[in-house]
C-alpha cells in the first residue's frame, strides 16, 4: 500500500499538503468568530464594522482554498486508483493457468469491480479525513497550550482515553468488512452462474427454485452488510457522544474563567479549539480502522499468492527438430490418478490421433505437452532438453491450439484470426479460406473487417470453430494441438478442414471423435489412452482392426 502512495512522491506530498489547507481555513474562521463574539463585551460599533470586512475577506479566501485543495487531491486520486486497477489485473494475468483455474471467473470479476469500488469509496475519503482531523487536533492543542496549559493537559489526556476506547473496536471492524467482501465474491459467482443457466431453467420450468435461492443469497448479503454498517455507525456515534460530553464539560470549566476575568473572545476561541480537538480525535479513530480495512482489501486483490514456483531456471528455448520424448510420466489431478508411468515419442512432422473414452486423460495429455501443468513425475524432453528448463514464452511461440471452446474478442474477424500479430495480410486471408470461412466472409458486409460482438455472439458454433482453425493455420507453428476441432462442423466442411489440418507441415496431436472416410486415415499414429496407460498404433493398423 505504501509503495502505491509513494509512487508519485511529489504529488503525494502535494496531496497531504492539500489536506492541510482546510485546517488553516478552519482556524482562521474560528478566530474571526471569536472576535465577533468578543465585540459584545467591547460594545464599539466601529470595531464591529471593521470585523465585518475582515470576515468577508476570509470567506473569499476560504472558497479559493477549498477549490485549490480539492483539485490538488482528485487528480492524485484518479491516477492512484488507475494504478490499483492495473495492479489487480496484473496479478490475475500473471498467474499460471493452473492457479487461475482454481477460482471461478466471477471471483476475479468481484475483485476487479466490487472490491475496487469499495476501495475507491472508502480509502481516499477516509485518508483525507484522517489527515485533516489529525492536523486540526495538533494545531488546536498547540494553540490552547499557549493560552491555558492546565486545560491543554486535561484535553490531551481525555483525547488519549478516547483513543483507547476507539481502538477496542478495531478488530471487529476489519473482521466484518472482510466478511462482506467474501460474501460479495460468493454472491457474484452464484448469480453469474444462475444467469448462465437461466435459459435451461426456464425451459424446464425450474427457475422458481433458483429464484428463491438467489433471493436468499441477496438477503444474506444485505444482512452481512447491515451488521457491518450498524457496527461502524454505532462506533462513530458513541465516540461523538463522548466528545460532546467533554465539550460541555470544557464549556462549563471555561465559563468559570469568565468569572475570573478572562475575555469573552479568548474563552470563545478556546471553546472552539477544544471543539476542534475532541470532535476530531473521536472521529479520527473509527476512520483509521476503516482505512486499515480498506488497505487490507487492497492487499487481497493485488498481492501475489502463487504457491508452486519452480526453483529451476527457465532459460532455454523450445527447439523441436526431431522428437519429443515422454519418459515414465505419472500425473495426478485433484487426487485422481490420470497417468501411470507412461512413455512414448512424438516425431516431428507426424500426425497423431489421441483416442480414449471420456475422461481418460486426452485433454490432460495435451495440457502436459503444452506446459500448462508442471507438477508431473517423470520427464518430458524435446530434442533432449527437459521441458522444465524451457521458457514458457518460447513454447507458446511454437505451438497452436484448436479447442472446442472458442474465445473471440470484440474486434474484427481479421484481428481474431491474426491475434494482433503482424502477419502478411495475404497470409491471413489465405488461412481464412483454408479454414472454410469464405461463405461467412461473403455474408458479412465488411468481410474480414466485420466487428464481432461479445464473444462472437452473432456467429454460429461452426463459424466460431472455423475462426479458431484459421488462427492455427495462420500461425503456422511447429506443433498443433487439436481438441475436437471439427465437432461443430457439418460432414462436408469437417472433411475439408480435417484434410487441411492433416496437410500442414506441423506436427499434429489431435483429439477427435469424428471419422471421415479417406481423410482420417491420413494420421500417422494413433495413441490410445486406457486406464492410465498409452498404447501406440500405426494408423493403418488401427483403422483396419478397430471397427468404427
Amino acid at each position, binding site marked *: 500500500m505504501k509503495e502505491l502512495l509513494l509512487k508519485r512522491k511529489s504529488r503525494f506530498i502535494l496531496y497531504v499538503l492539500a489536506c492541510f489547507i482546510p485546517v488553516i481555513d478552519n482556524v482562521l474562521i474560528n478566530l474571526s468568530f471569536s472576535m465577533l463574539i468578543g465585540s459584545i463585551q467591547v460594545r464599539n460599533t466601529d470595531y464591529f464594522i471593521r470585523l465585518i470586512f475582515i470576515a468577508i475577506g476570509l470567506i473569499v479566501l476560504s472558497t479559493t482554498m*477549498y477549490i485549490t485543495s*480539492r483539485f490538488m487531491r482528485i487528480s492524485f486520486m484518479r491516477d492512484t486508483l488507475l494504478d490499483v*486497477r492495473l495492479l489487480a489485473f496484473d496479478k490475475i494475468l500473471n498467474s499460471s493457468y493452473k492457479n487461475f483455474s482454481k477460482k471461478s471467473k466471477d471471483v476475479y470479476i468481484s475483485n476487479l469491480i466490487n472490491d475496487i469500488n469499495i476501495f475507491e469509496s472508502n480509502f481516499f475519503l477516509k485518508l483525507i479525513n484522517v489527515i485533516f482531523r489529525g492536523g486540526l487536533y495538533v494545531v488546536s492543542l498547540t494553540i490552547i497550550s499557549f493560552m491555558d496549559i492546565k486545560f491543554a493537559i486535561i484535553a490531551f489526556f481525555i483525547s488519549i482515553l478516547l483513543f483507547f476506547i476507539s481502538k477496542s473496536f478495531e478488530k471487529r471492524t476489519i473482521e466484518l468488512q472482510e466478511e462482506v467482501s467474501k460474501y460479495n465474491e460468493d454472491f457474484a459467482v452464484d448469480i453469474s452462474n444462475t444467469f448462465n*443457466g437461466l435459459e435451461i431453467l426456464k425451459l*424446464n420450468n425450474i427457475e422458481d427454485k433458483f429464484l428463491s435461492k438467489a433471493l436468499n443469497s441477496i438477503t444474506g448479503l444485505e444482512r452481512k452488510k447491515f451488521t457491518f454498517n450498524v457496527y461502524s455507525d454505532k462506533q462513530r456515534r458513541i465516540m461523538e457522544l463522548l466528545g460532546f460530553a467533554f465539550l460541555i464539560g470544557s464549556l462549563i470549566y471555561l465559563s468559570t474563567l469568565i468569572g475570573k476575568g478572562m475575555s469573552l473572545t479568548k474563552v470563545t476561541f478556546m471553546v472552539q479549539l477544544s471543539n476542534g480537538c475532541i470532535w476530531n480525535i473521536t472521529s479520527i479513530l473509527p476512520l483509521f480502522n476503516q482505512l486499515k480495512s480498506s488497505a487490507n482489501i487492497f492487499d487481497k486483490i493485488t498481492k501475489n499468492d502463487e504457491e508452486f514456483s519452480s526453483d529451476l531456471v527457465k532459460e532455454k528455448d523450445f527447439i523441436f527438430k526431431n522428437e519429443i520424448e515422454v519418459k515414465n510420466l505419472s500425473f495426478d489431478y485433484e487426487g485422481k490418478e490420470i497417468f501411470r508411468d507412461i512413455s512414448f515419442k512424438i516425431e516431428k512432422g507426424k500426425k497423431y490421433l489421441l483416442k480414449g473414452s471420456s475422461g481418460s486423460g486426452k485433454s490432460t495429455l495435451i495440457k502436459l505437452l503444452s506446459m500448462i501443468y508442471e507438477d508431473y513425475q517423470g520427464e518430458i524432453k524435446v530434442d533432449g532438453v527437459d521441458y522444465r528448463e524451457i521458457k514458457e514464452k518460447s513454447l507458446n511461440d511454437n505451438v497452436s491450439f484448436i479447442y472446442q471452446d472458442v474465445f473471440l474478442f470484440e474486434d474484427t474477424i481479421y484481428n481474431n484470426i491474426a491475434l494482433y500479430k503482424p502477419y502478411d495480410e495475404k497470409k491471413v486471408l489465405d488461412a481464412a479460406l483454408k479454414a472454410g470461412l469464405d461463405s461467412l466472409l461473403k455474408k458479412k458486409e465488411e468481410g474480414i473487417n466485420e466487428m464481432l460482438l461479445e464473444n462472437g455472439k452473432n456467429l454460429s458454433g461452426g463459424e466460431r470453430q472455423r475462426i479458431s482453425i484459421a488462427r492455427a493455420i495462420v500461425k503456422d507453428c511447429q506443433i498443433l494441438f487439436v481438441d475436437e476441432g471439427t465437432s*461443430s462442423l457439418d460432414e462436408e466442411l469437417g472433411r475439408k478442414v480435417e484434410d487441411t489440418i492433416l496437410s500442414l507441415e506441423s506436427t499434429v496431436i489431435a483429439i477427435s471423435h469424428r471419422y471421415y472416410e479417406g481423410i482420417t486415415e491420413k494420421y500417422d499414429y494413433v495413441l490410445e489412452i486406457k486406464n492410465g496407460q498409452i498404447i501406440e498404433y500405426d494408423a493403418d493398423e488401427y483403422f483396419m482392426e478397430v471397427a468404427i
Partner: protein
Amino acid sequence: MKKSIKKSWPYLGLALLILLIGASLDGYVTIKIMKIIDAALDGNMVLFREEALKTFLIIGLLFPTNILASYTKGLFILKSLVKSKIYYIEKLFDKNINEFQSENNAAYLSAMTNDMNTIETKYLEGLYEVGNSFIGFFVAFLVIASVSPIALFIGIGISIVSAILSMLVGKPLQNHEKHRSDLFQGYTSYIKEVLGAFQIIKANNLNEKIKEDFYNKSKDIQWKGYVIDKIYTYIVSFQQMLMYCAHFGILFVSVFMAIKGSITTGAVILIINNMGRVVYPLMNLSEWFPKIFSVKSLFEKLDESLTNHDNYEETIDLIGFNKSIEFNNVSFSYDTNEVLKDTNLSLLKGEKYLVVGPSGGGKSTLLRLLRKYFNPTKGEILIDGKNLKDVKKESYFKNISNVEQQVFLFEDTLRNNITLYKDFREEEINLAIERAGLRDFVNGLQNGLDTIIYDNGKNISGGERSRVAIARGLLSKSEIIFLDEAFASLDATVAREIENTLLNLEGITVINVSHVIFEETKEKYDKVFVVKNKTVFD
C-alpha cells in the same frame, strides 16, 4: 423500481422518528447551555451548577438514543436494498428467453453490483440524510424561535435562497452518472471476456496487448469519474461560500442585537449553535439532492432493461401433443437479417426427424422457433391446429424437453441435476442413466448419484456433461425431445448407442439437429430435413 423501494418507507419513518428524538434532546441541551453562560456572566453560581447538572443528565439519555439511530438507519437500508434487488431479480427472471439473451450477462451482473451500489450510496443514503437534515432544521428552528424570531427569519431567508441555488446547480450531474453506469457495464463485459480467454492470451503471448486494452478502458472510467468530481468541486465550493455568508450574516445580526441589548450573550451562543444545525443540514441537502436526482436516469435505465417488449397475450394451455406441428409459410428475420423464408414442413407425433445443414444456415433458428423463443415474423406455426404463438410458454415447455450442447450444471447433487427437481422412481432414473451411457461415470463416484457438483461441473468432461443432458431429456418423459448438437462431444460408439435408444422411443417425437450423422442410423429417421439457403428441404 422506485416503487419497490417505496415499500420500505415505514422503516425510513422509524429511523427518522428516532432521529427526531435525538435532535430534540440535542436542542434542549443548547438551551441549557444558554442558561449556563448567562448565569456565569451574571455571576449566579447556584443557577450555574443546577443547569450544569441537568445538562449532563440529558447527555446520558442521548447514548441509547444514538445507538437506536444506528440500528434504524441500517434497517432502512437493509430493507430497501433487499426489496429493490429482489424486484430486479424477479423481473429479470420474468423476461422471455430471447429478451433475456439480447443483453449479455455481464450487463445484469453490473446492474446487481455497480448500479445497486450507486442506488445505495446516492439514493438511499441521500434520502436518509435529507430526512436527517430536515429534522435538524426543524428542531433548531423551534429553539431559535424561542429566543429571537427576527434572527430566525433572517436565517431562514438566507437558507432558502441557498437551497434553491443548490438544487439548480445539481442538474448537470444526471447525465454524467448515467454515462458512468454505461461505462461500468462495458468494463464488466470486457473483463469477463478477457478472463474467459485467459488461456488463449497466455498461449499467444498476448499479455501486453491485453494489458494495454485494459489500461485504456480503466483510464476511461477513472477519467469520467474525475470529470464528475471536478464539476462537484465547483458546485460544492459555491455552496460552501453561500453557507459561510449565511452563517456570518446571522452572526452579524445577532451580535449587533446583543450590542444593542435586545438579547443576551448566552442567546447569541445559542443562536450560533443552532444556526449551525439550520445551515449545515441545508448544506448537506445541497450535496445530497443532486446525488438523489442524478439516480433518476439510472432507475429509468434499469426499468427499461427489465421490461419485456413482447407483450403478446398467450391464452392457450397445451395439454399433451397429439397430432402434428405444421409450419405454414413461415419466415423469420433477426432485425433485417432474413434467416428463413416461406418455410413449410410437417412434424408428426411419434416420428423421428434429423435436421442437418451448413452452420449458420438456419438450423438453430428453426430450433428456436420450435422452442418458442421467437415467433415467426410471417406465417404461422400450428401445433395440433392451434397457433403456437397463442400457447402459453410455461405450458408449452412442460411438453418438450431439450438436450443442448452447452450443458448447465448447478451446485447440487448429480441426482438433482438429472431429475431437475422433479420426482421420479429410482428405476426410472436408473434406466435413463443406463440409456445415456452414464452408468460408468456414476459408479466411479464415491457418493454415486448423491455426489455434489460444484462450480458448473468444472471437473466433469465434455462427454460426461453431454450424457447428463441426455439423461435429463430421456427422464423427462416429454412428448417432444429437441436435440441441439447433443452428440458433438461424444465418442462415436456411445453416440450411436444413444441415438438408437432415442430412435426406439415409442410415441415420442424426436427432432435431432446435428452434424454428427451415422450412415446406419440415418435410415431409421422418418425424415431428414436440410436447412439451407433460408429454406428447408427434406
